[in-house]
């Protein structure tokens, strides 16, 4: 039997939950080189990191692992969360071997109906990457959590 909206608890109250990291994230030069090569390019020789580290550094440098983050939304990571959107603004290029701090919060959660996924919650959260007190990049990600009825 398919889940209906009535079978599914309302989205959890997560707006405003702080996601600040407890320790800085450092882009290791050797890992950056391996990542670059895994995508088909050579690493830059000037100390800058692949810009995709805006995503990795914020995700790994925030307070929670992916599984813990999903749990904030009463969602089991094994049930397949999906990232659907991401917006990043860079103020300066990212650099290897530089400690970056992550600050952020959950912005919203919205219950929606999808023909493909049924009932789902769309969550937006914002993370900033800081070098000391200076923001080097700001990221807003949107994830979907497909919901199942309670059994």
């Amino acid at each position, binding site marked *: 039997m398919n889940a209906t909206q009535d079978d599914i608890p309302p989205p959890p109250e997560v707006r405003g939950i702080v996601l600040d990291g407890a320790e800085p994230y450092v882009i290791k030069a050797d*890992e950056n080189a*391996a*990542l670059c090569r*895994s*995508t*088909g*390019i050579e690493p830059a020789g000037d100390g800058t990191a*692949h*810009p*995709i580290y805006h*995503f*990795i550094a914020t*995700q*790994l440098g925030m307070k929670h*692992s*992916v599984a813990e983050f999903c749990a904030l939304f009463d969602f089991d*990571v*094994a049930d*397949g969360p*999906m*990232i*659907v*959107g*991401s*917006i*990043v*603004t*860079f103020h*300066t*290029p990212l650099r290897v071997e530089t400690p970056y701090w992550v600050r952020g919060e959950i912005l919203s959660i919205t219950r929606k109906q999808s023909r493909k996924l049924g009932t789902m919650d769309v969550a937006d959260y914002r993370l900033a990457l800081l070098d000391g007190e200076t923001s080097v990049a700001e990221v807003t990600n949107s994830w979907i959590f497909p919901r199942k009825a309670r059994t």
Partner: protein
Amino acid sequence: MTPGTLLTPFVVEAVSPGAMREWSVFLADPNPIHLDAEAVRAAGLGDRPINQGPANLAYLINLLSLNFPEMDIVTLETRFNGNVFAGDRCVAGGHVIEVGETGVRCEIWLDVDGGGRAVSANASVRKRARP
């Protein structure tokens, strides 16, 4: 370069399962749909490992680096529309929307051969200021 100019594509001839294993480490994400075809089948998502979304986004960033080697990315607004599977050939492409004194705005995308548009994005780049 003027509005409408097509970017030189960045091509991934075959998405590598080995690279997916590396990205599981980079992302600290052990989700088996990126590692194990059986997990993908069990989830009803296909029959090959699914490339990590940020890896797909990295291909778009490579496209920008290829076409604008003297510029830095300022903004990137991305929509993830579909999956890229192990073995897929995918092509990152795009065109110029606007050219300013210090930067360029583009519409870019990642298309999978036979699989449609997996990622679409708007990007802006500006002339590098650092020495």
